[in-house]
């Protein structure tokens, strides 16, 4: 078997027992890339396999294995463009903290994966490069915004990858591509070097082929960072050890508000079966209520766009990235026209839509009606979860109401696109950890994802449940035919 099909922990074991060597791993990855990348388009630009081949595998936690990074995570000396024209040519002059930690743990950077522009989207179609395709069905989207990372793992073009999740951007593509994706608790992983979308919601997390790899990768990147004032200074447990814990007696809530019209019957069926399986393994289930769920999408699109409009103000053509001033050439060098042309040409339609929306909700006279009120409802959503977690250890929901949809199917209808994140958004608003793992395939052969939500810093319980489920099912072993 080609080495690129193995998981990270299998490869580390093979390297340790000298059954595999690092050169062969990279050679297999490159071969796979040459074969399937033209179809999948998971990467924002071709990885540097020469760099990846130079790894030292001995004695490193991550075995020196290459990691794919979403195109919004800075790595020193590498292009980091957020799949946006406005950052065209931007070479990060520093390592994000997660990259520094990966390197300290003996990982190398494989390359940058495609994404929705600035992480604005749920389908990878807003990338300025090209849409990434779902390895399970090339006519379908891989989800987004970390669609490139999810697709590269699903297509075995990478062993594992990092993504970022602001409203579901790790979990939804993980679900649509049949891989494992974790959004850690807000503050668990440093955001330093992650090009911000919405600062109070963003979090970096791993996308992997199975739960063990996910825990392994989170072990490497989690922890307090004095460069990120919102990172939290509490010790990081060894997530690998949490896999071995018992799930008997674990109390799991099923929120009634999540089982609604609009949920695909096949998705619902898969979730019901997952619940039965977990019951048989000893978990206890009860129905719970998250009454403010219906406001989550509205609240999210106010807070996230407000923060985004501010975070994206810096892309103005002055210091880095794209600069356009064609009109200025005729009319003289005028600053404002450079701003307008640069931003006009640099941002795609979805980015402009969100910047305009965010600018509007922060404008004087509208702030109280939108932003201020959204913050209040955000608190109510948080309190819903606090209440449920007083009587439950975990919450179980579908990750996405539907399996992967067709490319182009929702691009003209932003609202239906925004609803793809209906099950994932509340988690970001509440700052909670949540993981998506494969729990079925539709009749058409598309993956279905199960979402496990935990208490703040409750990643151990999540991994424990996910691992036990995974060990008793075969979904994570299914591979797309490419």
């Amino acid at each position, binding site marked *: 078997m080609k080495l690129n099909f193995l998981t990270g922990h299998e490869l580390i074991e093979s390297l340790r027992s000298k059954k595999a060597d690092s050169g062969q791993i990279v050679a297999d990855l490159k071969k796979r890339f040459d074969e399937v990348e033209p179809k999948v388009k998971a990467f924002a630009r071709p990885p540097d396999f020469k760099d990846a081949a130079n790894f030292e595998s001995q004695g490193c936690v991550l075995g020196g294995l290459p990691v794919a990074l979403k195109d*919004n*995570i*800075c790595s020193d000396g590498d292009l*980091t463009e*957020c799949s946006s024209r406005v*950052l065209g040519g*931007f070479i*990060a*002059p*520093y390592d*994000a903290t997660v990259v520094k930690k990966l390197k300290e743990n003996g990982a190398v950077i494989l390359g940058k994966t495609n994404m929705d522009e600035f992480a604005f989207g749920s389908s990878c179609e807003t990338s300025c490069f090209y849409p990434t395709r779902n390895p399970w069905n090339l006519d379908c989207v891989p989800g987004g915004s970390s669609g490139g990372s999810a697709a590269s793992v699903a297509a075995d073009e990478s062993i594992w990858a990092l993504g970022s999740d602001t409203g579901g951007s790790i979990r939804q593509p993980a679900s649509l591509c049949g891989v494992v994706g974790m959004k850690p608790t807000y503050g668990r992983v440093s*955001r*330093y*070097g*992650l*090009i*911000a979308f*919405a*600062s*109070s919601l963003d979090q970096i997390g791993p996308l992997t082929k199975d739960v063990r790899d996910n825990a392994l990768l989170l072990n490497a990147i989690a922890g307090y960072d*004095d*460069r*990120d*004032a*919102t990172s939290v200074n509490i010790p990081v447990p060894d997530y690998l050890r949490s896999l071995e814990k018992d799930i008997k007696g674990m109390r799991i809530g099923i929120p009634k508000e999540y089982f609604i019209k609009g949920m695909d019957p096949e998705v619902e069926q898969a979730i019901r079966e997952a619940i039965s399986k977990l019951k048989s393994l000893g978990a206890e289930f009860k129905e719970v209520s998250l009454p403010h769920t219906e406001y989550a999408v509205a609240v999210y699109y106010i807070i996230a766009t*407000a*923060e985004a*409009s*501010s975070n994206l*103000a*810096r*892309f*103005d053509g*002055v*210091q*880095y990235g794209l600069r356009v001033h064609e009109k200025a050439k005729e009319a*003289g*060098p005028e*600053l*404002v026209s450079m*701003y307008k042309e640069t931003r006009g040409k640099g941002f795609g339609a979805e980015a402009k839509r969100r910047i305009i929306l965010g*600018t509007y909700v*922060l*404008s*004087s006279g509208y*702030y109280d009606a939108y*932003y201020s009120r959204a913050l209040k409802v955000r608190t109510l959503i948080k309190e819903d979860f606090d209440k449920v977690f007083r009587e439950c250890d975990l919450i179980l929901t579908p990750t996405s109401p539907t399996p992967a949809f067709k490319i182009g199917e929702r691009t003209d209808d932003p609202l239906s696109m925004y609803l793809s994140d209906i099950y994932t958004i509340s988690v970001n608003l509440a700052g909670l950890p949540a993981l998506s793992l494969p729990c079925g395939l539709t009749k058409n052969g598309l993956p279905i994802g199960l979402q496990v939500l935990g208490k703040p810093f409750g990643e151990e319980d999540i991994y424990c449940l996910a691992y036990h489920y995974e060990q008793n099912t075969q979904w994570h072993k299914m591979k797309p035919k490419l």
Partner: protein
Amino acid sequence: MKYETVIGLEVHVQLNTKTKAFCGCANVFGSRENTNICPVCLGLPGSLPVLNANALKSSVKVALAFNCAIRNFIKFDRKHYYYPDLPKNFQISQYDEPLSENGYLDIETAGSKKRIAIKRIHLEEDAGKLIHAEHAPYSFVDFNRAGTPLLEIVSEPDLNSPQEAYAYLSDLKLTLKYLDISDCDMEKGSLRCDANISLRPAGEKKLGVKTELKNMNSFKAVKAGLEFEIKRQTKCLEASLSIVQETRLWDEKKQETFSMRSKEEAHDYRYFPEPDLPLFSFTLEEIDEIRKQLPELPKERRKRFVSQLEIPEKSADVLIADKKIADFFEECLRIDNDSKNIANWLIGPVLSHANIHESFEALQLSPARLVELNAFVRGGAVSNLVAKSVLDEMLKTGKAAKDIIQEKNLGQISGADELKDVIESVIAGNKKSVEDYLAGKENALMFLVGQVMRMSGGKANPKVARDLLTERLKQ
């Protein structure tokens, strides 16, 4: 009609912390362009601010010194506007919840005291600096200054004259200097002042339309700018013209203000809470600790100098006006408590040397050396006059008073024998004065003493000379 002037001042002061407000870059003035920069103060994609706790501590010091209340939770906000010297196109500042509010500063003008309310003090980051290339269609940006901690101190419109504004600024600056949180150098831009000014008919409660004055590079310029505005606005009002709410710039060369922009073009800054910085809070113990660390402030010091050291008020004013001089003074008193004479040395000869050298620190003088010189005068070893020239020599050569007096043989003559010849020749040469004295004109004696001093090259002890003369003329 008589008009009342209403003035409010906004002072920006750069804090002298070792590092910038939100990153670890050195916070220094005068480095080569774009050398004190990093991803954070350049606002590079992915970078995040982390609050410099020392900047916040300095801010709290200032707030306490001006009797402000400190907020329990300190929040930062983003203020948005586009300009190339602002790397993120937003400034981290404080909007609706400044770290401190409701303080005051007592000022004194022409003998009358007045309390000026301080509305708010908040912490923000400074922007970079544009450097305009001459005859070129572009400009450069120097980001060294970007991210420098900047404190904004806003007064209530309690000031009613340019003189009061000047007194407020002087007192404010003196206190800031005592707190040692900034070098307060207007030329370097570490202290900047904008003024809001309006007029209203005397007795009227409603405020008139204000103009905002900017670009004043000294307190004198602030005063001159305000005086100009009072005249300009008075003319407008008397001609029944309405005053436009606008920003006006001070032209130092022409000594007049001119319109920069009207408020109609005012920005919507779209303030919202900075999501990258969690709320910060001090415990009461921490605030108390900072309060304990506050130095004695100039007003308290002046009071102490007057009441405990019996220094005249005017002299005390001079001494406290520069913290280094006041410290030097107290250092002297620790060695020798002759407060009045040492104060006179400092206020007179020492300060005039300092003015020539443009700084007190540049003088080669230690408290011990000044105390020694003063003791020579008090002990009668040298006269006051000679001592002044000894001081000149000390400052020129760095030598001690003792060595200079010895080397130049400047010791005072107090012996009757040594002065005998001089006295005789003064009496012989000033017959008229001697007669006058003998006829009862006391002033004539002073003249004769002066002659003895002159003939002895200033070395005669004036008291001894006077006694000897009286004695001799009795005969």
